[in-house]
């Protein structure tokens, strides 16, 4: 892939997406369907590696960049995925400038309520996809019980991975 093509593919995915899932969907359009740089199997490997690695799900784009164009692709995928995130600085600054305005407390209240709703919706979507049988449901209940007893998150994820290796293979 040439530099301009590589950059345009990953910039498009970064700036036209609204979350990690859409980033990967846009990359599939370009890398698998339009440019045919990756096979569907390669794409599945990239997404699986991203899902199995720590960090945001959308970081599967790093794996796709690597599979499509080696180290250069991985680095371009990484840095382009960062770019939209820096829009958060002016957004937060603008919000802080208006923080003293009377109406902004209403905005904070409303945004927090909607943010929580979106978070719980995301949790339900994940749960529905993950709980496919009684063993999965039992593991989910055990992990929730550990979390309610304030067991640290990394330890709970360690238990999840170990239980998955032993009982969900």
């Amino acid at each position, binding site marked *: 892939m040439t530099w301009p093509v590589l950059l345009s593919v990953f910039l498009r995915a970064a700036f036209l997406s609204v979350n990690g899932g859409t980033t990967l969907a846009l990359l599939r359009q370009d890398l698998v369907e339009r440019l045919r740089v990756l096979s569907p199997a390669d794409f599945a490997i990239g997404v699986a590696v991203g899902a199995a690695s*720590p960090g945001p799900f959308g970081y599967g784009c790093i794996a796709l960049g690597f599979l499509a164009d080696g180290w250069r692709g991985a680095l371009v995928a990484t840095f382009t995925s960062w770019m939209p*995130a820096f829009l958060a600085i002016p957004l*937060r600054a603008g919000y802080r400038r208006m923080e003293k305005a009377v109406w902004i407390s209403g905005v904070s209240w409303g945004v927090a309520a909607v943010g929580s709703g979106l978070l719980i919706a995301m949790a339900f979507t994940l749960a529905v996809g993950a709980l496919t049988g009684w063993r999965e449901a039992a593991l989910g209940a055990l992990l929730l019980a550990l979390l309610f007893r304030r067991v640290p998150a990394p330890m709970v994820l360690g238990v999840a991975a170990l239980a998955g290796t032993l009982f969900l293979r």
Partner: protein
Amino acid sequence: MTRLASSGSGGSLTPATAPTLVELVAIFVRTGALAFGGGAATLAMLHDEFCVRRPLLSDAEFQLLFGLTRLLPGMNLLSLTVMLGHRFHGVVGALLSLLGLTVPSFAIILLGCGLLRSGHTGPALAGAVRGLSIGAAALLLDTGWRLCQGSLAPLPWRSRTLWVTLMLAALLLSRVPAISAAWLVLGGGLVGVLLRPLIQSQRP
């Protein structure tokens, strides 16, 4: 720099010292290395680090920052990382936080690509991934529950009822594919402005 922030459960106010740049980056390196389970696990770990273990932010501010990230393109968690890094150490903090979150993931992803391409995988890895996805769902449910508890605790009953109604409406509307999360966040802000006389929030 000392800040006052509510504890993770939304309870009493506790003074918390802002992290040094090294401590801030260490939080993100730890999250980037241990948050197996995708964005859900990453979000839950960041909430744990910033609101529970060391109450640097109130639950309300964490929710607000997360809500604002939904207005931006790209991965929400990267925007949240930039906001958190920038809040404590400006642009350098934002950049290094992003680097800290990314480097462990980057290394593990490239290692994983190498392993998968060479065929060194098996049912054990598939099982671990399945277990981690269940862990991520549990983590996110727990985080959502704690955030709601923290937000609702200081509100008077009328504001609390309206907050839960708006939260449930957002939850339901998020299932409609034609409505993007950004519109829901903007709508939530607008509803908050319109309902402000009824809310009587004790928040700043």
